[in-house]
């Protein structure tokens, strides 16, 4: 059986090569803008991360690729959740990450992490990291903390 090819970091210089697939961030009527920052252990913005948002059930934008800006900021679109909750799969690559990280972001009518239907094994303290919070302007806020206080829950697929 041939052995799997190991992962290596994306490094800091991926932007131009992967730009062709960048999402055009223009939220439509039925979509919600989800924005936040990628933060490191010290709470510093990660300015060279790549996020890929995978929502195969959403024909409008099943795959979105976005880059973080100078302060680690990013934004992508999700559909309005209606009465049910929904989630998107998110992959993170960055300099200093030797492998990609897989997580999920959930939208829910309430802002209560306890109400989320999450995969088994997510620790109580990590539930809130998977929920995008509604803002007064109708958008949602979701930070991605790679390490430290409020560390995002990451999954092994």
């Amino acid at each position: 059986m041939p052995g799997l090819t190991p992962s290596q970091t994306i490094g800091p210089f991926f932007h131009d090569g992967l730009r062709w697939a960048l999402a055009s961030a223009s939220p439509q009527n039925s979509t919600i803008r989800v924005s936040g920052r990628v933060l490191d252990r010290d709470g510093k913005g990660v300015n060279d991360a790549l996020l890929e948002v995978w929502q195969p059930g959403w024909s409008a934008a099943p795959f979105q690729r976005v880059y973080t800006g100078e302060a680690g900021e990013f934004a992508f679109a999700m559909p309005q959740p209606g009465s049910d909750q929904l989630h998107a799969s998110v992959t993170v690559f960055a300099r200093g990450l030797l492998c990609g990280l897989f997580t999920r972001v959930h939208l829910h009518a309430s802002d209560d992490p306890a109400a989320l239907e999450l995969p088994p094994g997510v620790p109580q303290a990590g539930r809130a990291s998977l929920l995008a919070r509604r803002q007064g302007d109708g958008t949602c806020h979701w930070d991605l903390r790679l390490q430290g206080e409020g560390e995002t829950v990451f999954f092994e697929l």
Partner: protein
Amino acid sequence: MPSAARLRPVPAGTHPPYLYPDYRSTPERAPAHPLIPLAQSEAELGVAQFPDSILRANDADLTRQSSGEPLGQRIVVAGRVIDEDGKPVRRSLIEVWQCNASGRYAHARDQHDAPLDPNFHGYGKLLTDDQGNYRFVSIRPGAYPWRNHPNAWRPAHIHFSLFGNAYAQRLITQMYFPGDPLLALDPIYHSAPAGARERLVSAFDLAFTLEGIALGYRFDIVLRGREATPMGV
């Protein structure tokens, strides 16, 4: 959607750890908590579809993306993308990017004091064929210094991004060149476990060499294989 078979777990000793202090960017970015195992659903088994129409002329020939010829040693890089069972990973997207022959990326943040090449951007994309084969033409990238530790140099490498045929097969990695003395000193290469990291080194291959034009290198890539039984059976 037809039920696809789940992907088998990744064997221990395949990937680098997140925390690898010799690579100095990892201590503040590596998650401190263990990953939570996730049962694969249809979402993890599906994949973004990229039709042939995304490919532009010369996406697979990095030496022909400008009006002039780039400087450096022309190379052909080719191989197969297969899974652990040896099955071809068909019609799957590969993206590549690299620095120029002098060791400089055409990237605003690369401040290495080596010349840019106006005829070399250093990125391309391609789809594997029905047998999992891929091939592109480029120039051999140079080594370059980085600030990880005193007198640190990255070995020559080409970045690869692979989508495979399932979300859970997504892989970003780097291809190296055989016989590079910098490999022995490179913490990123060494972050992959011994026994696995050697798979990142391409092989010189006369069969891929274009006589009088370009040297050939083979780089086969292996993505996760599937369980014998489809989901829900």
